[in-house]
Every structure is written in structure tokens, then in C-alpha cells.
């Protein structure tokens, strides 16, 4: 197993708020790694910084051997990572298909039809609604669209930020089932979740964040069994 993403001593601030305080972690090829923690622990900030939406104060992000610190934000996706952002952030006034096309923005247009078919195969609901504007989709469908859009760029690393947020339990199950399938098909996944139970149930390893620091790490099974984690994040 080779390390594809390595984060070292990452610090991120919003003005005077020091949101991420020197965290370090790795993701290996083929793994699902999850960052769990309460609201405001710095999980989303971490993902946003890796994908270039935010700038770090110091520390480094190395992706497939390349330090991303000097890569312009819009070029990061072409390096092979895609983020499904918190709150989905699909383009509400564009159609489902146009959203997916935007996901393939950095790719040549030749491969797009085949990639569209592949995504439609994974998410049949999106195919039914390909001509609808994304604003008319339900929350679950928008989550699928955001995931499909990210997959259009053929990411080596797929990062998911709170994919279960605001969804009914049955939809959460569905979304996690899809994540599991993507993993089986060979995707490497970095998953950020408040729903620690669900996240640990599919992840290989987990990191627990508290107010911007990693407090515990280990294989998911161990974290699930740990009394301290149970008490703090798993509701008992």
C-alpha cells in the first residue's frame, strides 16, 4: 500500500480563529479513511484546504509525491483529487447533465459521453432527471449528483464532506452503500462525517478531531470499541 495523500503539521486560520492546529495524517491507496469529530472540530476546514479552497498558514499537503502548496487551486482537480463539498453545492440553475459536464471540465470532451453513461449507471435516478435543473432535485438526489460530478474527473482520491448531512436515514444508508461500492471498485476515499457510527462502519481507519487537533487514531474496529469514543461520539 502506497501513501497517496500525506498531510503534515497543517495549520489553517480564519482571521484570528485558528481552526486547524497542526494536524498530520495519511491516506493509503485503496483505503477509506475517515475524519470524525463534532461540529467545529476542523474537519471541513481540513478538506477545503487540501482541495485548495482555503490556504494553509503552514504545514504541507503532499498528493502522489507532489507538494500542493504551489499548485493553483483550480489545477488541483487535474492532479487527481475531487471533493464533494459540504452542503453538496451542485449548480442549482444548471441541468443534471450540465453539472456532470462541469465535473469533467478538466477532461477532454472525447471521453465525456462514456463517463456520463458510467455515472448514470451508478446513479440511475440521475439519468431519469438528466434534463432537469439541479434545483428541482431532492436532497438525496443532489448528494448523488455531487458525487457523480466528482467522479466525472476520474479522481485517484475522492473526498466526501458530510455526505449524510440533512438526509433521511434511508437515504444515508443508500449513500453509504454507494461509497462502499466505489471503494470496492478501487476508489480511495477520504470521508469526513459527524455520523461517526456510519463512517467507522465502512472505513478502514479513522482519525478523531477535537477543536482542530487529532486526539485519537486507529483502525475503525478499535475506535468503534473504544469506551472514550463510544461515550463522546457514538451516543453511549
Amino acid at each position, binding site marked *: 500500500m502506497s501513501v497517496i495523500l500525506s498531510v503534515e503539521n497543517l495549520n489553517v486560520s480564519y482571521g484570528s480563529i485558528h481552526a486547524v492546529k497542526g494536524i498530520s495524517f495519511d491516506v493509503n491507496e485503496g483505503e477509506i479513511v475517515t475524519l470524525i469529530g463534532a461540529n467545529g472540530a476542523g474537519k471541513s476546514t481540513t478538506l477545503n484546504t487540501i*482541495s485548495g*479552497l482555503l490556504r494553509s498558514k503552514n504545514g504541507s499537503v503532499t498528493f502522489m509525491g507532489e507538494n500542493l502548496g504551489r499548485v*493553483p*487551486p*483550480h489545477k*488541483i482537480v487535474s492532479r487527481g483529487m475531487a471533493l464533494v463539498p459540504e452542503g453538496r453545492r451542485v449548480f442549482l440553475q*444548471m441541468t443534471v447533465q*450540465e453539472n456532470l459536464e*462541469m465535473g469533467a471540465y478538466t477532461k477532454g*470532451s472525447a471521453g465525456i459521453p462514456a463517463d456520463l453513461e458510467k455515472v448514470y449507471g451508478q446513479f440511475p435516478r440521475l439519468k431519469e432527471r438528466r434534463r432537469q435543473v439541479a434545483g428541482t432535485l431532492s436532497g438525496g438526489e443532489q448528494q448523488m449528483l455531487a458525487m457523480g460530478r466528482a467522479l466525472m474527473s476520474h479522481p485517484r482520491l475522492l473526498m466526501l464532506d458530510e455526505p449524510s448531512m440533512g438526509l433521511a436515514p434511508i437515504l444515508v444508508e443508500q449513500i453509504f452503500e454507494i461509497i462502499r461500492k466505489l471503494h470496492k471498485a478501487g476508489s480511495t476515499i477520504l470521508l469526513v462525517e459527524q455520523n461517526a457510527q456510519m463512517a467507522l462502519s465502512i472505513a478502514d481507519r479513522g482519525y478523531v478531531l477535537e477543536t482542530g487537533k487529532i486526539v485519537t487514531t486507529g483502525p475503525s474496529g478499535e475506535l468503534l470499541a473504544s469506551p472514550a469514543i463510544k461515550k463522546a461520539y457514538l451516543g453511549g
Partner: protein
Amino acid sequence: MTILSNLISGISLGSIYAIIALGYTMVYGIAKMLNFAHGDVIMVGGYLCFCTTSYLGWHPLPAVLLAIVGCTVLGIVVERLAYKPLRSAPSLAVLITAIGVSYFLQNAALLLWGSDPKVFPAFFSFSGQSGVALLGGQLNITYVAMITVTVCLVIMLALTTFTGHTKMGKAMRAVSEDKGAAQLMGIDVNFTISMTFAIGSGLAAIAGVLLCSTYPTLMPTTGSMPGIKAFTAAVFGGIGSTPGALLGGLLLGVIQIFAQAYVSTQLSDAIVFAVLIVVLLVKPTGLLGRQVREKV
């Protein structure tokens, strides 16, 4: 017959407003800023065209093309120097900067070309005629009016196709909705904003030539009133909406000409703005504007 001829003048003037309003609306949609210097780009376009034809004796066609290229470059440079450094500044700072750029352009024109009005050459007359007379001479349609309306429709169609069917156009729509998400797709947001200014300013040059061909007096302040009117048209139609700019522009032009003809020339501008106020009271997003939900 005078009604019909006024209607035609109104539609022609409205088409010019619509082309200018497009520039306002596109820039607003993408950069979420009101580029109050947009009207002065029209004036620069007019002067560029005037100088090359009157002083250098160019044929109108290359002169218009040069004006378009010149304004496009001007738009890119202004965005780069004045607005880009303020990308994350409060909108009030950007607004004041835009007003500053507007004064800068007007005064630069004053310095370069002086304050005395220039008479813009009549491009659109064929075999000594400036228009065609219909219905036994009762109705006269000028070539300028015909060309203005045609150019406006062509621009509308071209822009609709561009934003709906090209990769760059779709990227623009994505940026206007969510810059962060667009960046995650690999779209270069700064380049896209720059392109929008370029297109808007190129359109302003076309509007400048059409405006000066209809009302052939060219002064450093020539662009400011039509600029404000077109801004009104953009808000009237719903700012951010392309069909809104067309509808708003046409309505504003027709209202203005009718007010001039049937109410009072002095009051016509007041009437135009009164209509805007009424529309905004009844429908705050403009005629075709959509409610923008604030994200939490």
C-alpha cells in the same frame, strides 16, 4: 403614423440600452459587482471609432473592429488593475472603485480629446439616404434603427448560445452560481471573470458606435447617462438575467421615447426612473429576476 415611428425609435434606443445592460448584467452575475464604469467604456468605444474614421480616414468596418478590440482590452485591464485586488473586499469598496474608474475614464477622455463635442460620422447612409420611406413617405425608418435592432438580436442569440452550449459559457454560469464549487471543478475563476469583462466591454464598444450613430454628438460624458439608463434597464428586467436585460432595455427605450413625445421632453428621464421605482416596489427582483436565496 407618428405612434409607429416613435415606437420604432423607442425599440431602436431600447436595443442600445439592452446591449449595454447585457454588460452590466453579465458582470453582476459573475463578479457580483456593479461596474459603474461600464457606461464610460461606451464613450471610449465611440472615440476610438471616431478617431480612426475622422482623423485617419479608415473604413467604418475596421474602425468598429478596432473599437471592439480596444474596449475589450480596456475592460480586461480595468478589471485586472482596479477590481481584482478587491475580490474579497466589501462590496461598497468595489462600488466606490467603480465610480472612481468612471471618473478616471471621463477625465482621461477630456484630456485626450478635449471638452468640445465631436460630430460622429454617419456610417449608415446608403446612396445619400439615411433610411427608407414607407407608406408614401409617412413613415421613415432609418438604416441605423434597422441595423441597431438587428445587431441587438444577433448579440442576444449569440450570447444565449454561448452560455447555453459552450464549455466556456457553461463555466461562466457555474462561476456565477458558486465560485468555490466552480473552482473545485477545475475552472479558473479569475480567468472566467476576466473573460466576462472582456465580452461586456466589447459589447459596450458596439453599443457606443450604435449610440453615436443614432445621436451623433460625442463628448467625454456621452456614456454616463446611457450607462445609468442601461443599468436601470438591467435592474428593471432583473439583474443577472440575459432575457431580462433585453426586455428591460426595450421597455425603457420605448417608455423614454413615448414620454418625450407625449408628455414632456424635460420630464422623460424622471418618468423612466419613476417607472423603475414602481416596478421595484411591486417586484423587487425585476421583471424576470429570480429570488436569490441567501446561503447559510
